[in-house]
């Protein structure tokens, strides 16, 4: 119980850390950047998994991540183009990318079933963290209705992946 709640806390602070803890309100271009970055991070992790995973289910899951997050991010790019908004890098995006790069390096040292487990566990934690960031900060913070709607679709996608990842994890011995 303690482990779980501290993991959740760590996951939330991973996202909301620097910028949000200080009560800094993100602008729409920054929110778009954070959401897009979250997608890119998951695609990169999945590409590593497509190469490294040994379980067929884990490989298939990674493939689903590349496909879905690629589709969401394409929609995001189409939207910012339509709204003539340039996504703006910010501390939250930077913290996210930095943590993700560290995690990727850590995962790269693992092999076989050990890698599979660690990748899927990280997918669960990462999707949970993004879910809470979307719900508590990004969606309420978005001013543009179309951006808000896209983030809401993103939330459903991330929640779906979290459940999918939990299912995959349950199947790993």
């Amino acid at each position: 119980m303690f482990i779980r709640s501290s993991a959740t806390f760590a996951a939330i602070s991973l996202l909301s850390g620097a910028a949000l803890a200080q009560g800094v309100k993100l602008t729409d271009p920054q929110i778009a950047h954070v959401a897009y970055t979250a997608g890119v991070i998951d695609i990169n992790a999945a590409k590593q998994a497509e190469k490294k995973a040994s379980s067929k289910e884990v490989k298939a899951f990674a493939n689903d991540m590349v496909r879905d997050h690629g589709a969401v991010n394409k929609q995001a790019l189409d939207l910012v183009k339509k709204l003539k908004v340039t996504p703006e890098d910010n501390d939250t995006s930077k913290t996210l990318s930095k943590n993700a790069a560290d995690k990727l390096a850590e995962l790269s040292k693992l092999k076989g079933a050990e890698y599979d487990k660690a990748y899927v566990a990280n997918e669960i934690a990462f999707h949970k963290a993004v879910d809470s960031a979307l719900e508590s900060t990004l969606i309420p913070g978005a001013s543009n209705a179309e951006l808000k709607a896209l983030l809401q679709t993103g939330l459903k996608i991330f929640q779906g992946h979290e459940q999918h990842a939990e299912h995959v994890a349950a199947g790993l011995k």
Partner: protein
Amino acid sequence: MSPRWIFPVVVFSMVCGSISAKAATIEITMQNLVILPAEVTGKVGDTIKWINKDVFAHTATARSGDWDVAIPPNKTVSSVLKKAGVVDYYCRYHPNMKAMITVAP
């Protein structure tokens, strides 16, 4: 000796009867990761038209394991109900998408 007009009436009602007994087509839409309607009722022999309006691939997967339909992004796929019963189904890629079909014999 029956009057001559009876024959067309009989044929007509036979045709109508067969039309009303004919299998129906039920449309189920997947949009923004939501399955609508969430509950439908059909019967064995009816066709389900799965309409995926999302840019994401979905599946309609029966929890019973009886069927598993893949519906690519922005595509419509049809499948026929073959077995009676209450079927809970979901999307394998997004298990938060859940719905139910009640199939009468």
